[in-house]
């Protein structure tokens, strides 16, 4: 646009002179239209984020201010009392711990198994490789909630309902396929030439793997782990069906039981929701950067 404005001055073309007022008018119109779009953009952004804003601010409000006829738009006075009440809720910390155990184990197992398989799928040539790749993609499309009935029946028979191990197994059914798929992509993105060059220079296959593939695929590994953690942390249906005893419950189901008990303590509920969302938001922020630096930084160029 600045180029267009400059042109009448720099060029000697005769037709550019009569055109310039039109251009100027068009320019101002564009600015006006632009500010209209900007206004709309801000508005949309505000509407989108409002529920999150409302959750966080509600968690910092006094009980009286939560129950006002005219809503209180900012939390003043500011209090963390709701968080204290949320933490004091029976089984909140226990459920949090259960979630941590299940999510951590799921992610770890998926990562180890998935990495081995992804390495083979991305880097080795063997009969059936293509079929396996197709299998891994197809499996991701299976609506796992359709499998909840047989899984419940089987785990029930094996006396694994109400146990973390049963839930971990169930979670692997949806975490593992996409872990393999993502890792395969990240490993395949490491240029083969680098690995081959290392092997020409005398590295064994194991050394080439450790010194070339692993460091270069590391950001991808982090991103995949985080995705696995997010998926498992957010899961609700399996935990709801497979774990019946409250003491073994995960945090997502705990949140739901908290709502249905009589007379909702909205402040504490919003505080608990904020606490449950917080680790996921932080992880999201981490992979945003990691993935960006990992994929764009010049590690490969150097």
């Amino acid at each position, binding site marked *: 646009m600045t180029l267009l404005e400059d042109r009448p001055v720099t060029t000697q073309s005769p037709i550019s002179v009569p055109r310039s007022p039109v251009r100027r008018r068009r320019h101002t119109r564009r600015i006006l239209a632009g500010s209209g779009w900007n206004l709309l953009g801000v508005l949309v952004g505000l509407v989108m984020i409002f529920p999150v804003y409302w959750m966080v601010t509600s968690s910092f409000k006094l009980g009286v201010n939560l129950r006002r006829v005219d809503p209180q738009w900012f939390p003043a006075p500011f209090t963390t009392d709701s968080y204290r009440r949320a933490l004091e809720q029976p089984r909140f910390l226990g459920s949090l711990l259960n979630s941590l155990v299940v999510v951590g184990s799921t992610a770890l197992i998926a990562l180890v198994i998935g990495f081995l398989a992804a390495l083979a799928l991305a880097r080795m040539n063997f009969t059936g490789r293509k079929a396996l790749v197709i299998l891994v993609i197809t499996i991701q499309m299976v609506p796992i909630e359709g499998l909840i009935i047989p899984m419940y029946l089987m785990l029930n028979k094996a006396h694994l309902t109400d146990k973390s191990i049963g839930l971990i197994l169930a979670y692997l059914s949806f975490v*593992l396929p996409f872990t393999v798929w993502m890792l395969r992509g990240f490993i395949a993105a490491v240029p083969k030439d680098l690995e081959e060059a290392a092997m020409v220079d005398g590295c064994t296959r194991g050394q080439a793997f450790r010194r070339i593939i692993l460091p270069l695929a590391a950001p991808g590994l982090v991103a995949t782990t985080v995705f696995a953690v997010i998926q498992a942390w957010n899961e609700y249906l399996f935990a709801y069906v497979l774990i019946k005893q409250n003491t073994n419950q995960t945090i997502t189901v705990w949140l739901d039981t908290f709502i249905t008990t009589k007379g909702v303590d909205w402040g504490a509920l919003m505080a608990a929701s904020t606490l449950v969302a917080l680790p996921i938001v932080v992880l999201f922020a981490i992979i945003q950067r990691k993935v960006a630096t990992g994929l764009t930084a010049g590690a490969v160029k150097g």
Partner: protein
Amino acid sequence: MTTTSAPLPPAPAATSRRRGGRGPGPRSGFTPWLMVAPLLLVLAVVLAVPLVRLLIVSMQKYGLDQLIGGRTATFVGLQQYGDILTSEDFWAALSRTVQFVVVAVGLTVGLGLALAHLLAKVARPVRTFLMLSMVTVWAMPPIIAMPIWRWLIDQRFGVLNYVLFKVGVLPTRTFNWFKEPLTGWMVITAIVVWGALPFVVISLHAALTGVSKDHVEAARLDGAGAWRVFRFVTLPAIRPTLMIVITLSIIWDYRVFAQIWLLRDIGANKDSYYTIGIWSYVESFSNKNFGYGAAIALISVLLLGVLSAVAVRNVLRSSDEESRS
């Protein structure tokens, strides 16, 4: 460890050893199979076996007697499938599911396209703010949306009710959204669309920035209006992304469970919220009629299978293009 020089059946191995080729290296004997073995084992246990079991149970009368009493289930063949396909409940649930998916996907993709265009039009700080707001919503665990939205539409202190009442949309502040199925579904749809929008907008925005500016400019100079530019220049360019986004949205919205399950509790007439997924769940876990529920679940899986096949083909094609470039 098998090395590259491992002696393999001579003739075929020699031909498949394409050092400089595109293939992922020389054949490596059994090692790759050892590496994928754990994956296959776990997938067999957590996916293949349950899938077979689902098929078997769907052909059995399987209730509490079998679950706790340990009695053997009676085989009834395809009878339960017949019952389902001839029952009114099934067609009601199917039509409810389809309606919900059509509306939710239409709104998500329509709004997503509009917002992706908006992102391209606004000034940089506004774009950053919009992106930040989108990513924050994206990062929210879906389960969190339920307490939040329940609080937003709370009958006594819900801020959404307050605003909509002030604006004149709602007749009363204490409006109960789940009194009528229609308004209840509106809330559920709003929650689902709200949660799904960020992914759609960000994907489509990325696709839009990839559209050649020269082509758009050329079309404009040729006198094409905004709609024609979109229809004949932008749309073909973003088509692959759009297709993937639409298929994924359909699959995700078809699978929506918690949003419906947790909110329908608020109101009466809970049956008006039975989608196929919810119905299957209720039949198996509330009515303890696992065989019947399994048959519904299997029909549901099959229905989705058609869509998924399309999605798989899309993903495969795009990954092919990736490896080719």
